[in-house]
């Protein structure tokens, strides 16, 4: 994974994300989403994430820049994993570095909500009974 990429087919390493702070920043916030063993009451044993990668990369970069500008935080970076994930694997990590904590919380929350609304990534859930389904999601606001 290159430093400025937002999508990866490999396991997400948190240490490099956390290390990328500067001494100007007093607050850091790391959000991670992981594959849960249950969803809507059904036992899950894995996930598969796919994406329309060129647009997903661009949308993630835009969300990071918007978060930085709207909340005046020094850095917002998002990494989303694609491919097959097992229970406990990290699907998404969002790190925000900021001089003050209030902005860090707001920027991080903005970024995850925007990701879920605007980035062409698709989650397929696999259940322990062998069934699989794509989760319903949010319709992109274009070309309807």
């Amino acid at each position, binding site marked *: 994974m290159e430093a400025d990429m937002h999508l990866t087919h490999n396991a997400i390493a948190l240490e490099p994300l956390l290390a990328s702070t500067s001494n100007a920043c007093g607050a850091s916030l790391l959000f991670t989403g992981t594959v849960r063993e249950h969803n809507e009451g059904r036992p899950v044993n894995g996930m598969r994430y796919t994406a329309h990668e*060129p647009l997903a990369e661009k949308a993630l970069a835009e969300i990071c820049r918007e978060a930085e500008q709207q909340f005046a935080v020094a850095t917002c970076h998002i990494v989303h994993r694609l491919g097959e994930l097992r229970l406990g694997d990290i699907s998404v990590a969002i790190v925000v570095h900021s001089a003050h904590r209030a902005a860090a919380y707001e920027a991080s929350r903005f970024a995850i909500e925007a*990701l879920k609304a605007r980035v062409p990534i698709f989650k397929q859930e696999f259940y322990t009974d062998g069934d699989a389904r*794509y989760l319903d*999601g949010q319709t*992109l606001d274009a*070309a309807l």
Partner: protein
Amino acid sequence: MRISLIPYGPLVGVLGEPPLDLELEATDAQTLLAELHQRFPALEPWTQRIACACGDSLLGPHSAIHDGDEIALIPPVSGG
């Protein structure tokens, strides 16, 4: 003209594995979707829920479609 469609997520189950090369009359994203819904009635659950993209650009309803374009068909998104 000839368009290469790339369905994502649950649309793969309806339209098949990408790419899907079709002869279409549509010249913009809106009419392309209308034509697809007509040809593939199984798309009915996704009425008003598919967006189109070309490369890294999301298409508006009146964005032009050109011969040879690869058009991504984007159902509701569920990242995170």
